[in-house]
């Protein structure tokens, strides 16, 4: 089996990520993010498929006031870039492969089910917390926002606390 190329030194990686974050601020005045793009797609979807509902339901009307066309959003373009960038890096390093990643004691089925469940929680939580680890925690910390620190502490604290119960998935 071809040995996959090594990953980058994490400290170097961190510096590079920090530079990307700085660039984002310098260009657009905002940092990175991810969950917002998912929200934009959901909103766009609902507006297309059920426009009547979108005009009455609270979330969509409130959202419309703040943002215009949901898909013409900074985060949507950024996430498209993430897909390309991730692919490029994977391709260059020989890591492109369809697989289900999991711990040695879990089956594919269990892993996939929990991946979906985890996604549901995370999607909901990201909306509630106004950001995910990229948008709220990382970017928030970079600007020293209290909300950012609080959200980050909550995410990591909870994950640590529950790690024991989820250990079958990973260990």
């Amino acid at each position, binding site marked *: 089996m071809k040995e996959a190329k090594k990953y980058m030194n994490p*400290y170097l990686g961190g510096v590079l990520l920090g530079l990307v974050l700085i660039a984002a601020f310098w260009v657009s005045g905002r940092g990175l993010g991810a969950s917002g793009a998912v929200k934009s797609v959901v909103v766009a979807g609902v507006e297309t498929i059920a426009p009547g509902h979108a005009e009455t339901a609270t979330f969509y009307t409130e959202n419309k006031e703040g943002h215009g066309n949901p898909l013409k959003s900074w985060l949507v373009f950024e996430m498209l870039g993430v897909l390309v960038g991730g692919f490029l890096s994977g391709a260059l390093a020989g890591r492109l492969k369809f697989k289900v990643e999991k711990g040695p004691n879990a089956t594919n089925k269990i892993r996939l089910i929990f991946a979906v469940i985890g996604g549901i929680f995370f999607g909901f939580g990201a909306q509630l917390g106004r950001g995910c680890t990229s948008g*709220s925690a990382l970017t928030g910390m970079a600007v020293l926002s209290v909300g950012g620190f609080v959200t980050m502490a909550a995410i990591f604290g909870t994950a640590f606390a529950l790690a024991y119960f989820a250990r079958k998935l990973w260990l």
Partner: protein
Amino acid sequence: MKKMNARLLLAAAVIPLGLIIAAVPENTTRPYKLTAEELLNEVSEGQQFMSPDEIAHMIISNDPSLQLIDVRSAAEYEKFSLPNAINIPLENLLSEEYVDILNQDVKLNVFYSNSSNQADQAWMITRQLGYNNNYVLQGGLNYWVETIMNPEKPAEGSPNEEFAKYDFRKGASDALGGGAAVSASAGSGTQGNTPPIVKSKKKKGVQGGC
């Protein structure tokens, strides 16, 4: 082993940088928007002036876009001020609490002082910061009192516009609580157009989150 070195390297880099950034005071200067030349052009054209007639007209017709700003000291403001004027003493002009009043595109701010010196100064400073919609009452309160409050009746044989102007000012003076005497016609006559309020593209607040 390489990772150990990277960590130390990182530490060696960020600690001094951190010390520097902790020690140096923050940069809070606001950049100047206009070059000296641009400002000189505007000053030469004198577009920042609004005549007392124009202002009186706006006051009488209750023009909601007018906002008079008295840049003299608080004591002088207390003694006498124009209708609905607010007081921003010149030395407090750059205070944070007034930024939203001075840098906006809804109201027509008109600075005034006794002559037009202080008002002019206020205008120059705010103009240099790139604010629009700020003007200066030409001649200040001194001229205002002369023309509006105690308008001089034009001599016989003066052109009709002079009389029209006089009538208007008389009417204004009454409306504003100035001298005595009746006006011939209370009609509002021809007055200068109030300068258009420039929709300054206020720097869009950045949207973020998610």
